[in-house]
């Protein structure tokens, strides 16, 4: 029953040299024909950027397969540049949901930071997937449209923007696994 599990503690402010020694923010090379850029800023409840967070992503490949062949699906970015993070990756395909129905394409996200005693977990959904998003089991569970919207990235032309608001007005929706 999960008893005996080791509790989480904050990542603290001094993790960069240990965890970000190699750049893991590019899951595919920027000149990959299907490369997309996902950018965002982590904010606290005062609206100030959080420059000491670590953002990790995990997602399926174009065909909806996890950890397949040469595509690891894992990325890690700091936010030292004014609270902002950035990934170069490919858009994931749809993957099966809990009852066999399909989930809309999405990216799993973990945020660690000083002041977060455990990670927050959220998902990035894609703005050009209106139909799939409408039938996605997780998004359709969320009755509050504004809360649901916090999970959908915004198309900025050369990048998709996904800002993460840890607390306060327009707080991003977070999950308990």
């Amino acid at each position, binding site marked *: *029953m*999960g*008893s*005996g*599990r*080791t*509790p*989480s*503690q*904050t*990542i*603290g*402010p*001094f*993790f*960069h*040299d*240990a*965890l970000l*020694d190699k750049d893991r923010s590019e899951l595919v090379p920027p000149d990959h024909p299907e490369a997309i850029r996902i950018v965002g800023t982590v904010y*606290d*409840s005062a609206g*100030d950027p959080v420059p000491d967070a670590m953002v990790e992503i*995990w*997602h*399926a490949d174009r065909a909806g397969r*996890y*950890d397949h062949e040469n595509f*690891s699906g*894992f990325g890690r970015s700091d936010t030292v540049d004014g609270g902002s993070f950035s990934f170069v990756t490919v858009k994931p395909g749809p*993957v*099966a949901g*809990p*009852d066999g129905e399909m*989930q809309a394409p*999405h990216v*799993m996200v*973990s945020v*660690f*930071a*000083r*002041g*977060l*005693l*455990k990670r927050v*977990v959220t*998902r990035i959904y894609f703005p050009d997937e209106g139909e799939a998003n409408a039938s996605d*089991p*997780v998004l*359709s*569970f969320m009755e509050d449209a504004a*809360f649901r919207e916090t999970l959908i990235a915004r198309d900025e032309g050369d990048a998709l923007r996904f800002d993460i608001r*840890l*607390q306060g007005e327009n*707080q991003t*929706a*977070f*999950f*308990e*696994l």
Partner: protein
Amino acid sequence: MKEMREQSPGGVVGSRRGDPPYLAPDYVATRLRAPKEPLIILPSTLSDTTGPAYGRAPVGELDNDLTRQHEGEPLGERIIVHGRVTDGDGRPVRGSLIEVWQANAAGRYTHHLDRHPAPLDSNFSGAGRCLTDDEGRYRFVTVKPGAYPWKNHHNAWRPAHIHFSLFGEAFRSRLITQMYFPGDPLFWQDPIFNSVRDEKARQRLISSFDLETTVPEWALAYRFDIVLEGRRATPMEDH
């Protein structure tokens, strides 16, 4: 979908697993960063029962020895830190990446933002990595980190600790935590350690002195076993 529901961010799910709540007001930095909206309980899917195969990441042979990364040996008390990583059912977590980082013996991190006026040690960077073996075991050689002050409250000091980052078998197993040393006189005043409300869970953050693993005339040893969330979701007790 019948399984989905919401959960208060400070609620029982966190305490069921022994995790601290997001908001622990004594730890001041949580006040502006702890989410307050209800958490959505995510039914288990491939998205979280799979995870990064970080076991394939190249790990150097000496990456688990923090005392041999420079010309000379770091100052401080040389120690062995080892243990076993298992899931909630006691199964070993094999071939899984562990990353550690810590202050030097004087209580100073190499990080450029650490302003504590204690000496840096040119022979110590304080970062290491290793993979668990087939029994889930890991082993690091390092020096015992010093305590250091921080500005959370008047005369605040962090107990000596080593940061641990673990991947486990799945996205849902991911854990970042801190290992403490037995008998530290600073526990009572540390809001990070005490953010874990459950006494038994809190004790699981403290390593034990391990005489058997001590290497005579060379190094003392501490044992820190780690239990991760398994690949499958923990059943709900109150469902």
